[in-house]
């Protein structure tokens, strides 16, 4: 049996018939950019994520750029961000003309390390920070990050691309964020039928500005208040997401069940690896199973899993600071924890609808890879 790393068909088949009807309606009503379905999606997301204002946009990367702009980040300002994350936050900072400052991760929760962030502030005096809620959970120190940023006038953008459904102390991770962003890339916990994203804020004035920034900075049709972006959602994506939302809690439950299986399985083999999941007080969404090998590198394990026909990923195989365009970037330390994780990390198949047998086979295969040695 072959186990894919991800199989979106299993989610899509649940909504396929309804989506085809919705898309026909979108065509009939010419709901190509914005429209009633987009408005409905924004209201539904606002309730689901317990965030006062949700503004949809074209993708999660645009959401970061626009979120930074809405926080007043300008060229030359310094923005702290974790060294271990997807490339988009780094891109967003540089696209704004600001200067990234890389911060190492905490070795226990794998999120940006609060103590290093705090110490680094003494040296770099960041104007802003991007706190990425990574891997399907968030930092155990989320409240400390928010408080520190408020007290030191550091504008905090929270990148929740991977954290749909994540809760901190029982509250949606998006609720208290000054500005938060999300991605609906198809592989995400809530995925669209293409690229899509959104920006969230509790502040009505900032929400108005964000909505304008997403739409060329428009005030009227050919009257502009800002230099903005063309980053809007179509009815086609909105209807797809609305249908996915009807099933998303089931998708999360399915992911969490798989995560639990892997966690319990590999907890029996501490000589081979360490398995991570949401820290205490945080409810995760099962976005990824993050396994840090203690012996072989992630690349070595991935090669073996390929032979065993088990799909896998390495999230992320290089840190931001190791990427060519980021060479020489400012940093708060030698970034050793993120660099080590990037060398040793391996992710097994985990998606909505994965079966117990598939998890078992994937876990047995990785164990075999560990036991076969180098």
């Amino acid at each position, binding site marked *: 049996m072959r186990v894919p790393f991800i199989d979106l068909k299993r989610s899509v088949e649940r909504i396929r018939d309804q989506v085809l009807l919705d898309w026909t309606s979108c065509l009939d009503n010419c709901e190509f950019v914005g429209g009633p379905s987009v408005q409905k999606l924004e209201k539904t997301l606002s309730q689901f994520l317990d965030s006062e204002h949700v503004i949809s946009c074209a993708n999660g990367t645009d959401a970061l750029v626009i979120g930074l702009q809405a926080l007043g980040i300008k060229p030359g300002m310094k923005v702290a961000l974790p060294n271990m994350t997807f490339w988009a936050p780094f891109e967003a900072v540089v696209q704004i003309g600001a200067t990234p400052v890389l911060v190492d991760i905490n070795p226990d929760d794998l999120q940006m390390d609060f103590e290093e962030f705090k110490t680094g502030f003494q040296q770099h005096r960041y104007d802003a920070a991007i706190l990425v809620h990574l891997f399907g959970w968030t930092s155990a120190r989320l409240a400390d990050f928010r408080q520190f940023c408020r007290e030191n006038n550091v504008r905090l953008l929270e990148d929740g691309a991977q954290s749909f459904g994540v809760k901190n102390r029982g509250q949606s991770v998006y609720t208290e964020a000054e500005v938060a962003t999300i991605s609906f890339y198809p592989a995400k916990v809530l995925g669209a039928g293409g690229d899509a994203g959104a920006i969230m804020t509790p502040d*009505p004035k900032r929400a*108005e500005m964000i909505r304008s920034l997403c739409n060329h900075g428009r*005030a*009227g*049709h*050919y*009257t502009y*208040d800002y230099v903005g972006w063309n980053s809007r959602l179509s009815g086609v994506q909105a209807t797809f997401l609305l249908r996915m939302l009807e099933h998303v809690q089931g998708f999360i439950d399915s992911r969490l069940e798989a995560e639990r299986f892997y966690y319990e399985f590999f907890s029996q083999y501490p000589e081979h690896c360490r398995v991570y999941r949401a820290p205490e007080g945080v409810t995760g969404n099962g976005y990824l199973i993050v396994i840090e090998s203690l012996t072989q590198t992630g690349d070595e394990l991935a090669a073996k899993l390929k032979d065993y026909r088990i799909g896998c990923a390495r999230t992320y195989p290089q840190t931001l600071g190791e990427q060519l365009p980021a060479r020489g970037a400012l940093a708060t330390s030698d970034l050793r924890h993120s660099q080590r994780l990037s060398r040793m990390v391996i992710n097994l198949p985990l998606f909505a609808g994965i079966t117990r047998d598939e998890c078992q086979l994937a876990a047995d295969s990785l164990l075999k890879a560990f036991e076969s040695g180098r």
Partner: protein
Amino acid sequence: MLSEKSYRCEVRAPYEHLWNALMEEMEHPEQFNKGILGSRILERFNNGILRVTSVPDADVREKIVFDYKKGTLSSQLVGHPVLVGVIEKKIVPHPELKDSFFLESHIEWETTSAPVDSMIRRNMERFVTQSLESVKSTAETRSIAAY
């Protein structure tokens, strides 16, 4: 926190007359509401306008979008320093009477300023009902004149 209020009045006039009265109010709000000192259209587009209206102590920009088929007109505040809001007007057919309609007005607003919120709550009803009644009166007068 979002606040909202709704008002409505019955208008005994054909749809065209009511719609035209709404369009006139969009173009010249000061003729329909004594609380508005003046207005100027900044931009006209396919299905709406961007206008600035002068009220005591402030100039306010609104983006107004209309839909003849749906009988709707939506007026969204733009770029106010402490206030966001929208006034949605809708023509709803009377369930029993021919050539009679209800003109509904639904207002939503949210502000970061407590004094502004209090000012809105004090003046909202008078401000909105005056516009509705003026539109009703214009439509009904035209209707009588037509017969």
